[in-house]
């Protein structure tokens, strides 16, 4: 019997709508509280990967007392396997700008920044044109909100929100200690909302169509849709908007090449799921009762049976070793040692049991690294080593 998969394709994000002026002017007729409540009831969570409730973030920033506040759109999309934000900024930039302006209205911020990664510099010119057009309309409706682009210069770690702010302040992109969180002390130590590009577009959908429309999509704890960046061994690589809560099995039926061995969910800092666990894995935020739930920034990389998982892990570790900011020891030295360690095992210079020592090291990194980069190396490392141990050795 043929398997009937049930991926739910949706088309909200890239739907081309030319009524942003109306959406903006109608939304800011509402009280800030109303807008925040709408966002909270939609249960929208951050789409960059961490999944913090967006309504709450805006609320906390709105409640912070300061004359100076900021809105930042995080377009430092650097996670391997993610490329959705570029597409959003190319196709529907006005949705992002509108959402930023509404956020400014809600929180009391007068300035917004788009932190665009250096690799996407070719977008800058076109985006600046859209911003000019947008600012013109803001003036017309007396909305005091300015948006500027801040260019990054090639550093993965600057996607981490506090590292991004350090970078904007003209420093090395080294993450800060939290707390204080950006909602209290962000850019220039002032209350700041920082949202992923995609998250902002979802707020646009909620402003236009209402929270219920968004809430009705997805499953419990994982409401709404998500953009997935599909790459690797697949006949149809690209960007797809799907409802959250799908099973990985369904995903592979749709996107696999018939020989899928494993899927990396969430990029190099995410998890590798082997074939035998496809049907127990759902894509969404934690809180489902059965099976494993994997949150993701949307990176889905498929590997078929011709791929060596050792090479995959080697590639990730090299990535982390280079991109670690070097500030804290667990991450700086940990990434180096993990890379040296798996190579030594592969060459037979270390016994297979050395892999267990390395797994312990990743646990330490998870507990002691300062930011998400060092903490999440354990995700891909342990999921690859535990599921494909033999490939690490032979």
């Amino acid at each position, binding site marked *: 019997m043929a398997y009937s998969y049930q991926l739910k394709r949706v088309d909200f994000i890239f739907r081309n709508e030319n009524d942003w002026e109306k959406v903006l002017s109608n939304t800011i007729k509402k009280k800030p509280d109303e807008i925040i409540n709408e966002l909270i009831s939609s249960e929208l969570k951050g789409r960059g990967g961490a999944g913090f409730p967006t309504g709450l973030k805006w609320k906390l920033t709105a409640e912070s007392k300061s004359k100076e506040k900021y809105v930042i759109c995080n377009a430092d999309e650097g996670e391997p396997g993610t490329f959705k934000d570029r597409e959003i900024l190319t196709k529907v930039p006005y949705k992002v700008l509108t959402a930023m302006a509404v956020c400014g209205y809600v929180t009391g911020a007068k300035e917004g920044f788009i932190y665009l990664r250096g690799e996407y510099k070719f977008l800058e010119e076109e985006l600046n044109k859209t911003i000019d057009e947008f600012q013109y309309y803001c003036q017309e409706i007396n909305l005091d909100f300015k948006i500027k682009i801040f260019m990054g210069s090639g550093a993965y770690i600057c996607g981490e929100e506090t590292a991004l702010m350090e970078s904007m302040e003209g420093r090395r992109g080294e993450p800060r200690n939290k707390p204080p969180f950006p909602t209290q002390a962000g850019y220039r130590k002032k209350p700041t909302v920082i949202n992923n590009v995609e998250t902002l577009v979802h707020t646009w959908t909620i402003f236009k169509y209402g929270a219920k429309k968004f809430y009705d999509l997805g499953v419990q704890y994982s409401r709404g849709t998500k953009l997935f960046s599909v*790459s690797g061994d697949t006949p149809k690589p690209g*960007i797809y908007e799907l409802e959250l809560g799908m099973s990985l099995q369904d995903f592979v039926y749709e996107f696999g090449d018939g020989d899928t061995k494993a899927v990396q969910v969430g990029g190099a800092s995410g998890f590798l799921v082997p074939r035998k666990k496809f049907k127990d894995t759902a894509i969404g935020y934690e809180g489902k009762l059965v099976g494993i739930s994997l949150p993701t920034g949307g990176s889905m990389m498929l590997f078929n049976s011709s791929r060596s998982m050792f090479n995959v892990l080697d590639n990730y570790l090299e990535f982390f070793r280079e991109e670690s900011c070097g500030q804290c020891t667990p991450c700086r030295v940990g990434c180096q040692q993990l890379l040296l360690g798996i190579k030594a095992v592969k060459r037979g210079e270390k016994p297979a049991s050395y892999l267990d020592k390395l797994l312990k090291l990743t646990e330490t990194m998870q507990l002691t690294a300062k930011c998400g980069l060092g903490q999440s190396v354990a995700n891909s490392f342990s999921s690859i080593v535990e599921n494909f141990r033999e490939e690490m050795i032979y």
Partner: protein
Amino acid sequence: MNPIKSLIKDLADLHGRHRENLLPVMQGVVQKEKFLSEYSMIEIAREMDIPAAEVFGTATFYSFLETKPAGKYIIRICKTITCAMKGKNQLLFAIQDMLKIKTGETTPDKRFTLLETNCLGWCHKAPAMLINDDVYTEVTPEKVREILTNYMKENI
């Protein structure tokens, strides 16, 4: 005034002289000069009244702020997983063969620098390559030869 000095002054006038203007100023120098020399960094420090060590520390953190001399065209080949799987090594070989340089080197005529870089965000169209700010995707060795030939013809 020497050209680098006046470039830095113009950039500082344009962006401002606060610490948060440091990155845009450095990016402006790199855009024009292709890299930040020691002289440029000291000059930026002087112009913006920031310790030179801080300027150096910040510059060396960012992979797109080169501190070594680089060619007019900086070729960056994505080496992260999907591009690695889809043949970035063949691209590297083709380019090395054509320009007679190794990865990390600059041609003697200072026109091309060949580098590898981390994920460029084009995994669905791998392998990907940047030449300065321009993106090339689904590049094959044949295609890359063609692209480079066009760059070589330029401004001769």
